[in-house]
């Protein structure tokens, strides 16, 4: 499956792209197709992506977050072991109280990745089975060290 095929299929499936004020956009500039969707559509979209056999995105190989100082962006990299066409999914989140549905029930690898994003960026994954600190020691809850304005005079040396 090529990038264009994937785009056509995506537009067929999700009417959000074609409505008057699109709540979702598709970006073709990168190597891979990038899709921006809203938080409300998220769970519906990813479930479709996984279960719909014409996409069958069964392999979530990267899950991370970017701090843009004004907002956070969740980035999901999917690929399919049958079609082999990766897709990048981006969701914009509120910076102060980021919240998003978990995908750990769809891709089990997300459980660890989401725990990492939770402790590093403070994103609250709703309905996550076990949302605790994974890498950071106890007492680092809500410190969100990967945010750009994080200050730690002891451990960080400013270049």
């Amino acid at each position, binding site marked *: 499956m090529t990038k264009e095929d994937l785009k056509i299929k995506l537009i067929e499936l999700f009417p959000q792209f074609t409505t008057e004020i699109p709540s979702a956009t598709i970006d073709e500039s990168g*190597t891979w197709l990038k899709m921006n969707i809203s938080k409300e559509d998220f769970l519906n979209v990813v479930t479709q992506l996984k279960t719909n056999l014409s996409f069958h995105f069964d*392999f979530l190989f*990267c899950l991370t977050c970017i701090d843009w100082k004004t907002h956070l962006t969740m980035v999901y990299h999917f690929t399919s072991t049958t079609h082999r066409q990766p897709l990048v999914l981006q969701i914009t989140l509120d910076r102060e109280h980021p919240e998003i549905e978990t995908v750990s029930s769809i891709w*089990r*690898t997300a459980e*660890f990745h989401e725990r990492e994003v939770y402790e590093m960026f403070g994103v609250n994954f709703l309905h996550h089975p076990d949302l605790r600190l*994974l890498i950071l020691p*106890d007492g680092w809850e809500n410190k969100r060290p*990967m945010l750009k304005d994080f200050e730690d005079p002891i451990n960080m040396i400013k270049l």
Partner: protein
Amino acid sequence: MYRETDIVQDTSIEGDLIINVGPQHPSTHGVLHLVITLNGETIKKIEPHLGYIHRSIEKMCESLSYRQFIYVTSKMDYLSSHINNHGCALCIENGLQIEVPPRAQAIRVLMDELTRMASHQLWWGANAMDIGALTPFFHAFREREMINDIFEETCGTRLTMNYMVPGGVMADLHPNFQKRVKEFIPHFKSKIVEYDELLTDNIIFQNRTKGIGIISKEDAISYGCTGPVARGSGVYCDVRKLNPYEIYSQLKFDEIIETGGDCFARYMVRMREMKQSLSIIEQLIDVIPEGDFQAKTKAVLKLPKGEFYSQIETARGEFGVYIVSEGGTTPYRIKFRSPGFSNLSALDFMARGSKIGDLIAIMGSLDLVIPDIDR
């Protein structure tokens, strides 16, 4: 800041025994901390506690320039530091549209495959040691030492090479390189037979690994396993085949697939991969193209605004580098998708219901490198 060891106390339901395996334990090969809930000798639950060697490399890289941050990545998966450097270099080249000279491409592939072999050799010894056979470890080190010597001549160091730079490699090959590699090839060919005789064909070893830690193809995909762990379950996931970089598309080699999904399948994948790596080196060693070993690049690299992702096959699986650039001299955000992190998440699934001895065998078959997981 001093970190308190959060040793988990026995506060569970009656009848359960909670054991802390690690952070210092002979078979975690690093500072992995597993909290295991046991019922007798049977494992009920495994909970990894990570971060004992977390250095926040991703945050660190945000303040380092594109040339500098590559050197930090050597310290992640220290057993395939060449490949880590390579992955980062690929991502930068991808962003800057740098054409790497053919000689540099060949050198990179040679180094990658040597690294893969060295890493698998160490794993072979360590896996055998986990299962209780101590001798293979030293036999594996004998061969690994030869590879390390080859690296030392060309790169100057033995473990964290820092040899790949954006646009090629840092220095040309040492004049002895070809000779040393040609000495190594027949030596290792005879020794890999010895490996099989010593461990693979051993009945106790087979009993310890066959049917242990089974993970099906679907589960392996769902847990995001890559590398030998996924290929042992029959998942085609070799980046060198699926998404060829450098000159891999011109080389003849097989993607090793086993369908058992157990420790023995993963073991066999790695054993056969070593032979494939050897054949790649054989194909390349006599036909390294002449020419530049590095493309001409600017002194200060600036990636254009955008997002770049590159994948590379390390000895442990797919290593991904995700760079978000704002157009400056440093990456705005960088994310390393380490293979060990995802492979580790499948540990609980694999080991539930088996014995402590099996857990050690499974951990050995996952080939975990803790700095790679913690980053």
